[in-house]
């Protein structure tokens, strides 16, 4: 493992039996898992290159139990790592050897669906897809749709501020949650927001969303429901060059159209996907766009005509429009299977998640090809084209000595490049442990210290999910200190009235 985790606390480890017993008093029955064999499934999340056995796994069932576990750990100085379904691609739920892994899987009730107010109140262990399924009968759905939506949970979605292929039009998690119940590391239970828009006071929900389990443990979420669009149709458009595809995306948006989804794949990704699912993708193109319009039929048909005009003007080689729901789903099948498809042509792959200003795409793809040659590793690209979120898949073989390390270095170079061209390290997968040490490429020490001070406001003891997001851990007391240079600051020029 390339990333150093916080030093194990021997004093805590020496008390393991006593800690397990105390936790069993809080969560009786099967809710505390302490045998190595039974803890094994929890040793990693979706970032499987990183593994660690937790000290103990706890699976609470009530908010009161979560509160009691956290209060106990807070009092006794024990670290806690929260976990949803464990689908994080950045190691956000990577256990700590001296920490409690707090699994929220038993919180899987949908507490209320309220169609009049277009909200659902759900427990954090409910899967993303289950929310949409529960409200489908009334013609509603929950918009953010990360590709892991069958498995990933709402609690994890809030922690990671998950996106999906439809977020350019419908927003990411933070734009679609209205309230939550949150337990702080101290055990205090707070309610933020509700069924109304805009929480009162500071937007704490907004900062908890995407905080990667470092600020609190979510025990209930109120999500917005949207009316399902009347229909959706997709166009499959092939180009001879990624520049043309990029130009097409810019002109679609420039002409005032915000598609429900707009995805791009490069040649290696197209080839792998087509071989895998036979979606009918053209194999003689360098870039393929899927542009999906949704809404009333009259609108979708009208806008699709305009999209096709734009595509032709941008030199599209091929353009097909779905004429049935089956055909639309087939267009998507290749894209949605892109990761496993790449998994078929390489023993392992490493999925990156930078976002770039879209105009920089040709440059970034070119530089990535140069890096690919330098590291001797192939790369395939899928791209949420509308919002500039790039998922390069680096192909490697973990059984070949040094390849994982080379893949990680390659990945880090790509992310630094994203930042260099005006983008960011992660668009939707989170920082976790994976990108933790790259944070200084994007943020100054002052920026990171301010973020950590906010962490201190929620978790002064620093016990909740330490070792994630921040490359350097500081004590809150040290961060809080302020050096005031007494007296006059020299700014004679500052206008005063």
């Amino acid at each position: 493992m390339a990333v150093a985790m916080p030093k194990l606390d021997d004093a805590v480890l020496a008390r393991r039996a006593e800690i397990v017993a105390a936790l069993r008093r809080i969560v009786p029955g099967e809710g505390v898992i302490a045998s190595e064999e039974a803890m094994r499934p929890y040793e990693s999340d979706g970032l499987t290159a990183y593994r660690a056995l937790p000290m103990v796994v706890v699976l609470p069932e009530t908010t009161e139990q979560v509160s009691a576990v956290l209060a106990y750990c807070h009092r006794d100085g024990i670290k806690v790592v929260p976990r949803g379904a464990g689908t994080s691609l950045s190691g956000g739920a990577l256990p700590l050897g001296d920490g409690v892994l707090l699994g929220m899987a038993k919180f899987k009730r949908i507490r209320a669906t309220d169609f009049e107010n277009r909200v659902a109140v759900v427990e954090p262990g409910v899967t993303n897809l289950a929310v949409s399924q529960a409200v489908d009968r009334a013609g509603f759905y929950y918009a953010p749709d990360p590709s892991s939506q069958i498995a990933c949970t709402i609690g994890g979605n809030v922690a990671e501020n998950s996106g999906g292929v439809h977020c350019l039009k419908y927003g990411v998690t933070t734009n679609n949650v209205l309230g939550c119940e949150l337990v702080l590391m101290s055990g205090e239970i707070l309610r933020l927001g509700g069924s109304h828009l805009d929480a009162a006071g500071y937007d704490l929900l907004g900062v908890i969303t995407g905080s990667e389990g470092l600020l609190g443990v979510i025990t209930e979420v109120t999500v917005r429901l949207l009316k399902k669009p009347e229909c959706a149709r997709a166009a499959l458009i092939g180009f001879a060059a990624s520049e043309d595809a990029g130009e097409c995306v810019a002109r679609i948006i420039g002409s005032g159209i915000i598609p429900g989804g707009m995805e791009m794949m490069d040649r290696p990704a197209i080839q792998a996907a087509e071989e895998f699912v036979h979606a009918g993708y053209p194999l003689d193109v360098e870039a393929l766009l899927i542009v999906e319009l949704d809404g009333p039929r009259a609108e979708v048909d009208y806008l699709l005509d305009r999209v096709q005009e734009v595509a032709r003007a941008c030199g599209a080689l091929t353009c097909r429009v779905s004429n049935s729901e089956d055909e639309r789903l087939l267009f998507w099948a290749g894209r949605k299977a892109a990761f496993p498809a790449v998994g078929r042509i390489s023993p392992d792959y490493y999925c990156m998640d930078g976002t770039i200003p879209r105009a920089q795409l040709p440059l970034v793809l070119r530089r990535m090809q140069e890096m690919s040659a330098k590291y001797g590793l192939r790369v395939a690209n899928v791209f949420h084209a509308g919002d500039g979120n790039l998922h390069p898949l680096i192909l490697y073989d973990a059984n070949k000595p040094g390849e994982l390390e080379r893949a990680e270095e390659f990945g880090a170079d790509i992310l630094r490049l994203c930042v260099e061209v005006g983008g960011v390290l992660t668009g939707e997968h989170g920082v976790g442990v994976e990108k933790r040490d790259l944070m200084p490429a994007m943020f100054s020490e002052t920026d990171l210290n301010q973020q950590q001070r906010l962490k201190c406001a929620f978790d002064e003891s620093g016990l909740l999910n330490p070792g994630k997001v921040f490359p350097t851990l500081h004590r809150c007391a040290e961060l809080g200190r302020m050096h005031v240079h007494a007296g006059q600051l020299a700014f004679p020029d500052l206008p005063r009235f």
Partner: protein
Amino acid sequence: MAENLKPRDAAEVEQAVKWAIAGGKTLEIVGRGSKRLIGRAAQWDMTLDISGLSGVTLYEPAELVLSAKAGTPLSEIEALLTANGQQLAFEPMDYGPLLGGAAGSATIGGVLSSNLSGPRRIKAGAARDHFLGVTAVSGRGEIFKSGGRVVKNVTGYDLCKLLAGSWGTLAAMTDVTVKTLPRAETERTVLVLGLGEAAAGKLMTAVMGSFADASAAAHLSSPLAERLAETATAGAAVTALRLEGVAPSVAHRQAVLEELARSYGRLSTLAEASSRTLWRAIRDATPFAAAGPTGARDVWRISTAPARGFEIGRALVEQAEAEVLYDWAGGLIWAALPPSDDAKSGLVRSIVAGAGGHATLIRAPAAVRATVDVFEPETPALAALTKRVRESFDPRGVLNPGRMWAGV
């Protein structure tokens, strides 16, 4: 009159805050002052005037982003966006007319600091949802940044959300980046006339759950409708439903909407130009404008679950002699109450608490705003967290202390 510091760039803002910290002074952060009368009436030693930090620094329509210095006039940004067929989709309201100031004097920093939105909030979100990146000077006198210039980003805590709606109590923003979106090609508003509040509520709920895809839904009682040119001739209460998009879509959805609404009441339609004018007036709570017949009343802004809005509104009318304007399909209530020593704060808050939501006292004399809570009071645990969050940015309480809550 407090002394006024007028920095010209971020470095000077940093210097000014450092100077205030060293001298134990408090600062009132001001853009162009359009929302200066909102918040608790507190006293600050000096004014930090950000309006000198002005100008759009980056605008790439195809990337849907715009960066500007925090003191840039909103009107300048909106003119630039309009010229490029784009807009700030959250439709920020203009507080000028309601508070008795000039219209069109907001700055982008002020819009974000107060997390403004408008009728399209129900479809497109508030300022917070479009706030992509920020550079600011904390109450520690340090320049920090958060977010970026791309629309999809989860790198580090989303401090933009926290700064949105913090009313300058955490940091003085110097540079901001927002998401821009295409302007709808056309719009039209369907008016349903003569509905009582309960029927209007039922209709708006039905519309929001239909394929009509309305981008705004408001209800004005007859006296309020009379105060707006577009609805004055109706001679009845008006329920207004806005459709935006490309022409074929708007036409189709108008048919859907009219089919649904026909059984409720008489229908009429506003074409594009008058539709725009009407929604600007609703956005700015114009029926309660300072220059209007109820200009002396205290004004509350209440956010609640939309289906509960009419219950709150009815209680305010019956128990507090309020005039009530409903936006956000019932989820936003503007209530104008006859002047009183405490803006009937206890009554308003207990009515809102019964239905869920929060209330902000937007307009009241300074003496009232000095004695009653302007923002929703918090539970002790939440108030303690709020205070810790505030102190993590501004441990000495230099920036706008007391504007949101006493002692914070």
